């Protein structure tokens, strides 16, 4: 199974101001309650929140930059640094935990040589453990971009990475 490429494929190419403006143009201006959906749109489009986009979002939604910074660092969904082409989301939910997700996650960390929340230097893989994917029947489970991998052990997790080319 070939995982679909994430929108973050070209994430480390910093988007221009006009690209950011284009990504958020459909949101009403001067509506502070739209900050989170706007940030979600930017995250979705570029795979991260480029720090340079904060003044643009601030101006659009009429919310101060420091408030936006406070919001985006509060929610786990947002990242200020670019992500890799393949986003690995191993689940550390309860069902996965009791079925050995810790070993799977440690193994991924070892073979990729990165910690949770980090990206490999070639921007191929990012590792981001999640609290629960809601697929407890697949435990231990992982998502790579939009695809699910279930009943993992160290070996199967390593094999899943081989699908990512």
């Amino acid at each position, binding site marked *: 199974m070939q995982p679909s490429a994430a929108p973050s494929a070209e994430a480390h190419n910093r988007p221009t101001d006009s690209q950011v403006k284009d990504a958020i143009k459909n949101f009403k201006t001067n509506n*502070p*309650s*739209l*900050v*989170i*959906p706007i*940030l*979600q749109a930017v995250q979705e489009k570029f795979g991260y929140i480029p720090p340079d986009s904060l003044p643009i979002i601030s101006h659009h*939604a009429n*919310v101060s930059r420091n408030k936006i910074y*406070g*919001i985006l660092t*509060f*929610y*786990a*969904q*947002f990242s200020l640094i670019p992500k890799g082409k393949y986003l690995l989301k191993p689940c*550390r*939910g*309860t*069902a996965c*935990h*009791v*079925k*050995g997700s810790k*070993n799977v996650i440690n193994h991924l960390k070892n073979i990729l040589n990165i910690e949770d929340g980090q990206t490999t230097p070639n921007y191929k893989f990012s590792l981001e453990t*999640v*609290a*629960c*994917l*809601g*697929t*407890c*029947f*697949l*435990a231990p*489970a992982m998502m790579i971009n*939009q695809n*699910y991998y*279930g009943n993992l*052990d*160290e*070996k199967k997790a390593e094999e899943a990475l081989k699908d990512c080319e």
Partner: protein
Amino acid sequence: MQKLHSLKELQYFKEELLRSYDGKKKRILVCSTGCRARNALKIRDAFYTVIKQEHLTSEIEIIETGCQGLCAYAPVVTIEPHGIFYGKLTEKDVPDIIAKTMKTTEAVNHLCYSENKNTYPYLKEIPFFKPQKKIVLRNCGYINPTNPEDYVRRNGYLAIAKALSGMKPEDVINEVTKSGIRGRGGAGFPTGLKWKFANGYKNDTKYFICNGDEGDPGAFMDRAVLEGDPHSVIEGMLIGAYAIGATHGYIYVRAEYPIAVEYSTLAVKHAREMGLLGENILGTGFNFDITIKQGAGAFVCGEETALIASIEGRRGMPKPRPPFPAESGLWGKPTVINNVETLASIPQIILEGSAAYAQLGTQGSKGTKVFALAGKVTNTGLVEVPMGITLRQIIFDIGGGIPHGRAFKAVQMGGPSGGCLPAEHLDTPIDYESIKQAGAIMGSGGMIVLDEINCMVDIARYFMDFVQKESCGKCVPCRIGTKRMLEMVTRFTTGTAETGDIEKLQALAESVRDSSLCGLGQTAPNPVISTLRYFRNEYEAHLNDKFCPAGVCKELFNYAINPEKCTGCTVCAKNCPVKAITGEKKKAHTIDTAKCELCGICVEKCKFNAIAPVPKKQLNHIKK
């Protein structure tokens, strides 16, 4: 979509749908949501291909449904009208099913559910389904969630029609109150009472929010309902909005559930096109519309005041109550927040009457509850049962017991706010009060079964790690207390705990519980409190013997092979990733502890239960 202008048109529409529906037609219901993770869409495509090849397109219909419940057998299909259930399918099983079940009515036995060497082809006879009573999940797995006609045909939107055609808002509230339904999100507050409060506050603008921020690890029923029957949630919201006088609503759904987001968004769009949302609904003058809001990954947003802050575009931090949202909620207006499962039950209560609903369940807990069964249990999946059934019935009769012949140790209920109940509580009837008394909570309904190779101290550490990460940081007891608790529990799991630490941990747990601002902090110590209550011996083993009896905490044990049980089958040696196991065929093997990384694969693979954790200091003795 056809626009419906009046209550009568809805009735005609439904009758028309029933007339054109051939109940005898052969249908293949393919779970296309949860089972996607196990290639369900490929199975669906294979059915389409084979049906086309065999020129059966006019005779057989494929319905892409939501969750059918028995996730352990994913990917699953149900064949109607025979009611035959197949699971664990691969693409190559598809021609068999078409040839046998669809052309004759014979079941393909090896694809059927089996238990204790019995095969159960028919869904209604399968022990997993038999004791269940489906109200919330009445349509899940039977209808195509992206087709509102399927929902209307099964009496969808008739409940809101009934409410609008003769019931006053107060009548609706009375009916819901009489049904006895309590909030299914976890706290168990009576839904009717909540509506009554909100109805009592006079204001031109009121809001109705559906809480779909299902953050408890181990719970996935809200996801299943939003994916499998989103219109039932919309209808529940319509009824609630009518009862309290709200004109706008939000469905707050986790972004981690992409299918739920997609299907609920689509359902809102369809309902709007059909005139079931928007202005002058069904010509009655009632206005209500819904916006979908995606969560952004913060567990605390399941708490209602934090959820409101998040919708308002702020950091999701709770605030002290009162005032309760019913008085001053979203943008300071009266607001009701109900959980997905609660809302999905409402149409059924209005349509069938409160008495029918209140007949189910116990004195204090009426109706049915959906549980997400996961962990060390054979039949993982979603089950809906009447309140009052026992844990044993759920875990052993429906769930099929513990796999690999291991022993049951505990069931973790209610996620990070809940607790672990040991075997002595297996016969506890499930209702809000008795579960609480036993030391857990009903919570959202996650049920994680733990077996003998799970360490209870590690489970407590796991939840402290979770809540410590998810604490929003606003109040000190939760922000610092959970951090200190995590450090203390970690001392146990790493062998550095000292005498007196159990008492200190207990005292701190109670302070955090009693002094935190919101539900997250007040319930965060529960996993520690409940494991200290029932599994104190495991804490003591970690403390006094520096030994983890379950073989989980890696600093505190080594694996050793019992030479009396080992048959020399070599399975462990073949599977060991670091080649730490050696031995001759048919002779007892040994583990080189210097090489062993304690991954536990050998324990999983050994069929003779010959590998067990031993305390580090005893190792030499056992080797001899």
